[in-house]
């Protein structure tokens, strides 16, 4: 006698690892990871503001750390993460409006693939401006 539905193992809710990896899914995960990164990075902003409110020595110390090659590397990464999360948020507004459903999934996949390139491009532009104005 065949198993009845009552005794057969019930299907479990599928999780991340059973899905084919797709760009929109990748960007959804990255949006969350960048958000968590930005969360902890706000400490850098608080330290910078506190240093600026303190003595010239304390400000110089923080400026030296932030201006070192490692500091600049972290700040560059933080800028990229910030821009990525920001334009990702704008993308989420578009998706919340429901217009992605009308455009179709090819369009949302294209938008997801474009994300890292757009965010990297804007980040590099910001840093060119920052470094040029610093040199001038």
């Amino acid at each position, binding site marked *: 006698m065949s198993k009845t539905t009552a005794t057969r193992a019930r299907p479990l809710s599928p999780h991340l690892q059973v899905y084919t990896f797709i760009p929109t899914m990748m960007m959804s995960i990255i949006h*969350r990871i960048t*958000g*968590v990164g*930005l*969360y902890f990075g*706000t*400490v850098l*902003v*608080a330290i910078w*503001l*506190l240093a*600026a*409110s303190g003595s*010239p020595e304390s*400000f*110089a110390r923080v*400026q030296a750390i932030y*201006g070192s090659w490692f500091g600049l590397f972290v700040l560059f990464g933080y*800028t990229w993460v*910030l821009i990525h999360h*920001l334009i990702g*948020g*704008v993308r*989420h*507004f578009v998706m*919340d409006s429901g217009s992605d459903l009308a455009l179709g999934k090819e369009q949302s996949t294209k938008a997801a693939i474009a994300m890292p390139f757009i965010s990297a491009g804007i980040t590099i532009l*910001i840093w060119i*401006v*920052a470094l040029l*104005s*610093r040199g001038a």
Partner: protein
Amino acid sequence: MASMRTPLRRVRGLGSAKEGTDHFWKQRLTALANVPLVLFALGLIVSLAGQPHEVVRSTLANPFVALVLILFLVSVLTHMKLGMQVVIEDYVHGEGAKILLIALNIFFTFAVGAASVFALLKIAFGG
């Protein structure tokens, strides 16, 4: 006869928390506010990169700059507090650990906010 009530109904004897879509709405509202506020803060920091202490102080002491930066902090910190809460609720399933982390999330947000706003007001009021 066993009670027909679901465990959810019995769990705390409470009804709806009456918050509804409050979390979702505030996350979107702060996201919208963050766009111009973050662009302003980013532009300011880029223009102040490598500048001497006095220039940084006098720029931050400008009432408009200080005010917009405080709005930036309130909006960004509210947004990230809500976001981190969702991350904790999604991945931490132990009840004690979850409540502890949600409390730490609130403490962290307020610590960053209090320190930053204090620094800005100190500069703005010439301390």
